[in-house]
């Protein structure tokens, strides 16, 4: 006979993944309580207003086939609009600025041929990686022993090819090519449908924005869950667990539950003391799956002036600190908004300087791309995800070599009554908004199946 508990399920983390899990469980008649360390919901999504423009400080884009986040947004009544991409993109490369259209930046014929050669080789490898099971790939350990950077060197990639893929690496995983497991990168690209869908705007993962902002989805889900369900400012410090029961400890006291869903980035699992300790591979996962470092800057203007010059607002630069930009203006273009990404080594340095220096460096980079008008925005904001203590970086985990083949399976493997969510644990679109939602729903299904099998005990929850 099992003792009674406070709730059926305790969820740790009120990001999209934890909230999606809680919603799914609640819809199945299970009682749930969500603990969030920060004083807001959303985790790696957050929104604010700058000079009357709505700004997504975290996860921003959605695209086709990301059906779980799209369905959740639809259910919450949060609208979408297409990312602006009409006009020429800019490439600031080797001190020259060139206009281009399409997905392939004009790096010269030799550069282009080399890029196509390396990309073809890379895409071939991605097709050998089973989605959700990278450890089952042929030569998984061999691939995991390499970094993206060492693989590029082994392919004799040109400096231009290396630098272009470094831009992808900085913005996709918040790290340098020399830091991240090749197996992880191959699997990430594979489960996102390939480099094309992952990087494209039209028809790809950057196709749309949310009209009310991504954060609004999390806010509305939390509202529907109820104030008494979501506990903000309540970091879970310790989880005691047995086979069929967990006790969560926060500063406010303890909560008992039959199951726990821990929906935090893998590295932050180590911020919780588990009693008894997690098995060694799970502990190693938390230690070795550190999060990348990605920061975002937004400059708001009275109008999207670059459109007058026939520019899309999308750009790539090899100089930094801003390596990629997008036009993030509102759908009615009542304001002009440029979004820039800063990742990897430069983000680590940029994050550490004073706010005024960060601002002037970011605007300097935008000025190099879009001219003098870019230097005088009506509003500016930056978001340093690496400085967020309860997030630890962004946009997703960036495990180094040797940390994937033997540990990836531990991402979702339950430990007793403890189940795992968070975008990194998704089988599809891991690292994206969609992965966060689908992972939460998957963890909720696991828990629901277990609890339904022992329904009489579940009904005894207070």
């Amino acid at each position, binding site marked *: 006979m099992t003792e009674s508990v406070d709730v059926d399920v305790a969820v740790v983390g009120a990001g999209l993944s934890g909230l999606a899990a809680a919603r799914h469980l609640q819809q199945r008649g299970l009682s749930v309580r969500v603990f969030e360390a920060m004083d807001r919901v959303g985790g790696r999504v957050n929104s604010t207003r700058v000079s009357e423009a709505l700004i997504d400080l975290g996860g921003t884009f959605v695209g086709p086939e990301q059906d779980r986040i799209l369905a959740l947004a639809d259910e919450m009544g949060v609208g979408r609009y297409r990312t602006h991409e009409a006009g020429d993109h800019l490439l600031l490369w080797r001190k020259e600025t060139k206009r281009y259209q399409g997905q392939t930046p004009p790096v010269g014929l030799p550069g282009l041929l080399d890029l196509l050669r390396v990309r073809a080789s890379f895409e071939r490898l991605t097709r050998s990686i089973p989605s959700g099971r990278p450890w089952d790939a042929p030569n998984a350990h061999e691939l995991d022993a390499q970094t993206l950077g060492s693989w590029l060197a082994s392919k004799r990639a040109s400096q231009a090819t290396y630098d272009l893929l470094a831009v992808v690496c900085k913005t996709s995983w918040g790290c340098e090519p020399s830091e991240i497991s090749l197996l992880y990168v191959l699997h990430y690209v594979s489960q996102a449908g390939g480099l094309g869908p992952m990087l494209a705007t039209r028809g790809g993962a950057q196709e749309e924005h949310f009209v009310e902002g991504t954060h609004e989805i999390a806010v509305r889900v939390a509202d529907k869950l109820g104030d008494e369900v979501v506990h903000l400012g309540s970091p879970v410090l310790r989880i005691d667990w047995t086979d069929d029961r967990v006790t969560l400890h926060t500063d406010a006291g303890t909560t008992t539950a039959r199951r726990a869903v821990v929906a935090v980035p893998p590295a932050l699992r180590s911020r919780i003391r588990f009693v008894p300790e997690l098995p060694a591979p799970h502990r190693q996962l938390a230690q070795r799956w550190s999060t990348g470092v990605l920061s975002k800057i937004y400059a708001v203007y009275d109008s999207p002036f670059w459109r007058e010059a026939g520019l899309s607002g999308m750009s790539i630069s090899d100089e930094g600190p801003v390596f990629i930009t997008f036009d993030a203006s509102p759908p009615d273009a009542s304001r002009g908004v440029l979004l820039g990404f800063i990742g990897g080594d430069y983000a680590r*340095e940029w994050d550490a300087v004073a706010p005024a*220096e960060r601002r002037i*460096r970011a*605007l300097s980079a935008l000025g190099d791309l879009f001219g003098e008008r870019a230097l005088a925005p009506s509003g500016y904001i930056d978001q340093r995800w690496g400085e967020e203590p309860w997030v630890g970086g962004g946009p997703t985990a960036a495990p180094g070599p040797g940390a994937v083949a033997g540990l990836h399976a531990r991402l979702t493997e339950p430990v007793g009554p403890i189940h795992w969510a968070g975008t990194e644990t998704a089988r599809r679109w891991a690292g994206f908004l969609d992965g966060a939602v689908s992972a939460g729903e998957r963890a909720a299904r696991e828990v629901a199946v277990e609890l339904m099998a022992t329904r009489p005990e579940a009904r005894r929850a207070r």
Partner: protein
Amino acid sequence: MTWSVHHSELTTATTAQLWDRWGDPGTWHLDDPAVEWAQFDGPLAVGTTGVVKNHGTPAQKITFTRVEHGRAMDFVVRLPFATLTITHDMEPALEGVRTTHGIVLDGPLHRLYAAVLGRKLARALPLVVRNVTAGALRSSATTGKPDSSRRQKNRRP
């Protein structure tokens, strides 16, 4: 007969802070990963000579050809049938200072040197500029004033 490339960035570091950083050969190896060590043979002035040793290459003699305190500093490296000029400029702009670092190749073989040397140096310019501005801001934060005491220190091992 000239090939050149420049890189500019805006920073909140003052011209005095930047001048002190650019003018201290003891920090060049910190700001430019290619540099092993550098030294000046006297006070920073037009005509002053010095030596820059890059990793994997022989030490090169440098000669300052333009020194405008707090504004600009250029030095040249004589190459066979070409001259390499390294420029450093600082000017107030927007809410800070625009600092510019450049490479100029002159002479009959400037195209050859641009192909074998210039483009590699050019790729490093953004990194050097950001290291210099970061160093300038750091030294100010540490000491509260420009650190000119190290300017002539000989860093040769």
